[in-house]
């Protein structure tokens, strides 16, 4: 089983986000980055499938030089090799533009499966997996909770809304977008970190790729959301805050 895992590098959760001077994207200068958490779950599922069935796990990640850190992390956890699609300006791009770059590289790989997280923690489009499936002509399923290989097909458990689930059988090759929490995440071992240094990372420059799409949505401006609701913020030392809060809940909201 050859499995591609598409991962994204995103700003560390709870980063202080500053908007750039033009108001078009973030000021990236002081940001730290990490692997998008849903993609970490996709990687974990891929590694466990490989441990069960044998084969190869290949990681693909698009972005500037800094994403090599995320690629190393994936290799240290057990991916066999990686592809870095080098591109400087993907930050605010639409999902189709970025996915088309990935597809242009992946069409030569002929995997059995492509796994990716169900969405990214930064832009939150939740589309990359589905677009890859369409561009590569593969079947797909989204928000997957369990994967059960059955020869030339797979049976997956999908999460639906309001506590409903559904099993779906798909022919291979297929793209799955993986729900967070599907398995317990592993840590990279010291041995894994050491071995990662010897693993192959192929670098492809986005400017050498000819994706068959042009950008069709433009993020014109980003800004802090307007406050819609009047929230009373209580301040002071913790004891004081607690006292104010109990008073408000008892005598103002009358809910305590």
């Amino acid at each position: 089983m050859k499995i591609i895992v598409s991962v994204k590098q995103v700003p560390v959760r709870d980063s202080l986000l500053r908007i750039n001077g033009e108001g078009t994207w973030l000021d990236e200068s002081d940001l730290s980055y990490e692997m998008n958490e849903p993609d970490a779950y996709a990687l974990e599922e891929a590694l466990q499938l490989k441990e069960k069935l044998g084969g190869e796990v290949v990681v693909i990640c698009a972005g500037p030089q800094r994403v090599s850190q995320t690629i190393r992390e994936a290799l240290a956890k057990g991916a066999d090799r990686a592809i870095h699609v080098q591109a400087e300006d993907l930050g605010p791009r639409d999902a189709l533009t970025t996915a088309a770059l990935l597809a242009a590289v992946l069409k030569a790989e002929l995997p059995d499966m492509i796994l990716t997280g169900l969405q990214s923690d930064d832009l939150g489009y939740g589309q990359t997996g589905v677009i890859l499936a369409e561009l590569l002509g593969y079947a797909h399923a989204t928000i997957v909770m369990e994967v059960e290989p059955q020869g030339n097909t797979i049976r997956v458990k999908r999460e639906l809304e309001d506590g409903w689930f559904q099993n779906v059988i798909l022919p291979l090759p297929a793209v799955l977008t993986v729900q967070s929490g599907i398995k317990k995440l592993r840590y990279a071992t010291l041995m894994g970190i050491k071995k990662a240094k010897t693993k192959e990372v192929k670098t492809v420059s986005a400017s050498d790729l000819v994706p068959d799409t042009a950008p069709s949505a433009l993020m014109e401006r980003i800004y802090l959301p307007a406050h819609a609701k009047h929230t009373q913020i209580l301040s002071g030392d913790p004891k004081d805050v607690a006292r104010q809060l109990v008073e408000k809940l008892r005598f103002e909201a009358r809910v305590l």
Partner: protein
Amino acid sequence: MSVLVVLEQHGGKWNRMAFEAAAAGKMIAESLGVPLQAVVLGSAIDGLANDAARYEFRKVFATDNPLLARYTPDGYTAALEQLIRAHQPRLIVFPHSYQVRDYAPKLSTRFRKAFISDVVGVKTENDQAVFVRQLFQGKLSADVRANGNPQFASVQAGAFRAMEPGDGQAQIERFAVKLDSAQIRSQPEEPFREAQRSVDLTAADVIVSVGRGIKEKDNLPVVEALAGVLGAELAASRPICDNGWLPMERQVGSSGQTVSPRIYFAIGISGAIQHLVGMKGSKTVVAINKDENAPIFETADYGAVGDLFEIVPALVEEIKKSKA
């Protein structure tokens, strides 16, 4: 050059977000001065099409085919592709449901167009729609403009007040699609629910809900003490249940339970939209979080910015005192 709304149904019943998407579509259609249309897909959907015709649509397309009886991304994409090519709407509006997330990016890609997903607002400028999306789980907003037609956008749950039925008599037009069972690659089985939930948070009067801010499982007694003194149910955001710190049945949000207690304490919960949709019906919301920019403070009535490990124990003491 219409605005076309995809009215989502499951087993002959509307998805509750269907008419929120319709409301967004109506607003855009009116400001662009173009007709509003809707489409219903499925098998044996006459009843649904008749029901949809009571709303303020110029026209309702009924796309009825046995191969659409059960949702598949291949079937829905092929059917909508044919309708869009035949009738050329300038904008297609979807509810941002799990089903739409499964096929709308595929459909828009077939037209080599971006899908502007999870929209919370729409403006029109120079005869063009400008869509407002949230980034970074609600911490930032973005204005997004699509170029060229058709355009594809989905509307976040709760962002628009659902359209009410009127005494309208929209014209129903049957739209026959050519589908072949060989082009439908996935075989969906019957949807199911896991074993009966033993925890019903929907009936809870007071809920203490905990998020990532609790840092580790061993810290849970901090919030359990608050739930204890309030006689509240303990609940959690998704990451806590993903980690196995609390059972899945205590999860509030789009993939968990939807609750509307008298008081909802959000402790160390940042307020990602997937969580907010599950609790924004609460009467009074109290948020305690160290990040003053956390989106939960948008939804809260009372907020405390600070260390939950200091504030929550102090709160437990104050509540004990007030009850004494």
